[in-house]
Each structure stands twice: as structure tokens, then as C-alpha cells.
């Protein structure tokens, strides 16, 4: 049993497949959700998958370097900045129009 499990130890392809699946789930949420906050959550899932991807490549392709980790840190910081501005926009849009449904947001000027 242990040998069998050890034979299926995840390699680069398994990790990258996991990232692709996560990214696809985020894409599905991005395309189907209508609440602006839910869309931002889907974007977070996609960004997380991308950061994971960078770390996976760092681990398996260039294990002596650190560049993938730096890239992941930048992605995380960018996600934080994006969510701050996104939430500010959503909250002020809600004040202005009393709705966060993206289907009703069709003008640039309130």
C-alpha cells in the first residue's frame, strides 16, 4: 500500500493540473455570478491559482532560485490592493444606486 501510494506521488503535472482546475472554477464564477462582490471573490480564486502556479514552477523547475516565491508575493500584494479598491467602488456604487448587481451597471456616470 505504501509503495503504491509512493508511486503516485504528485509531480509537476499533477500540481499544475490542480492549478488549472482552480483557475477554471474561478473563471466559472467570474462568468456566472451577478453580484459584484461574488465576482471579486471569483477573481481572488483565480489569483490564488496563479500564485500557486508560480510556486509550483519554482519548486520543480528551479528549486535553487527564489523568483517564483517573489512572484507569488507580488501576486498576493496585488490581490490585496485590487480587493481594497474593488470593495471601495462596490460600496460607493451601492450608496449611489442601492444595488450591486453588475447587470444593472451599464453607465460610467451615476
Amino acid at each position, binding site marked *: 500500500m505504501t509503495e503504491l501510494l509512493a508511486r503516485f506521488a504528485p509531480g509537476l503535472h499533477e500540481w499544475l493540473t490542480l492549478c*488549472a482546475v482552480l483557475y477554471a472554477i474561478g473563471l466559472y464564477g467570474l462568468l456566472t455570478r451577478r453580484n459584484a462582490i461574488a465576482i471579486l471573490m471569483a477573481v481572488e480564486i483565480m489569483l490564488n491559482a496563479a500564485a500557486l502556479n508560480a*510556486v509550483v514552477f519554482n519548486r520543480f523547475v528551479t528549486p535553487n532560485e527564489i523568483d517564483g516565491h517573489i512572484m507569488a508575493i507580488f501576486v498576493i500584494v496585488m490581490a490585496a490592493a485590487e480587493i481594497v479598491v474593488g470593495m471601495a467602488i462596490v460600496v460607493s456604487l451601492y450608496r*449611489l444606486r442601492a444595488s450591486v448587481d453588475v447587470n444593472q451597471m451599464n453607465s460610467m456616470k451615476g
Partner: protein
Amino acid sequence: MISDATYTVMFYGLSATVILLALLAVNARQLLRAALGLMGMLALSAGLYVMLRAEFLAGVQILVYVGGIVVLIVFAIMLTRSSELLEDHPAKLTRILGATFSIMFMLIACYALGTTKFTESESTQAVRDEVRDIGLALLDRGANGYLLPFEAISLLLLVAVIGGTVVARKTPPKHQPFTTGGDLRGETVAHPPLVQDDEHVVESKS
């Protein structure tokens, strides 16, 4: 170091849980439940980072995502009263189109993965001081350093803080050149009545 068998079990267990929680985050009708799914998914991703020998990133992930972003999302859900108004199910056509699109993306990505040969290499360092390496790389002025991106991203954070404050500010002070008006413009907007029953979910205007 953990054995290969444990590694396999951990990988597939964590992956299945992460995928299920991500599905909950994009499918749950109640947004607070979706935020909970997102939180679990991001926290378990930290476990995946540990498995990839990125312990510092796992800590950053917990601190920034779970401690900051999810809390911000929950606040926004409550501020916009999205938790009271149930998110209605997306139209069937939208769901089918979205699922088709994302599954096609996944299949194409997996096909590209399967047909690509990566040059993998093993680590030559027995023990790795990850935090020290990251710190040195971030402050390195050389050709492989990240000092300029580091400064740029700190500027980005500053801009995000100022921008978020200005955009979401309730009442603008006098002589404030950059403002969206805040509540002063929205005073005429009547808030919708609180909906209690399931009949009055946000109706679609499409």
C-alpha cells in the same frame, strides 16, 4: 521530511478539499457562505504552500488572504446588505455557457500540460533559508534583484490605500480636490425595503 506516501495522501486530500470549497465559493447562494468557502479554500492553500516548501508564503497567505481579504469581503457583503438579499441563481443559459467556457479552458490547459516537456531539476541545497533568500532578493539592486518592483509595489499599496479611502469616503471634507462626492450625492437615493421572504430576491432587469 515526510514520506512519499504521506505526501501523496496529503496532496490529494488537500486538493479535493480545496476544489470542493472553491466550488462552494462560486456556487453558494448565500454570499456569507460563499465567503466562508473562500476562506477555507485560501487557508488550505496555505497547506499546499507548505507542501511546496514555501513556508513563508504559507504564513503570508494566512495573514493577507484569510486575515485581511476575507474579512474585507465579509464587511463588504454586510455593508451592501448582500447577505439579506439572496443571490438568485444565474440563468440556465449563463450557467451552461460559463461551465462550457471554463471546462474548455481547463481541457485546453490540461492538454497543453500533457504535451509539454518541462526540464525538472532537484534541489541541491539540503537546508534552505527561504525567508533570508526572499529578503535578500527583494533588496538586491543587481540584475537579478527585485528592488525596483519592490518599490513599485509599495507605491501601489499606498495608491490603493488612498484610493480606497477617497472612493469609499462617506462625506467629503471641504476643499478636497479628489472626491467622488460620497453620500452627498446619494442622499436622494431611497434605500430599497428590507426583504424578508424568498419571493423578493434581487430581480433581474436583463
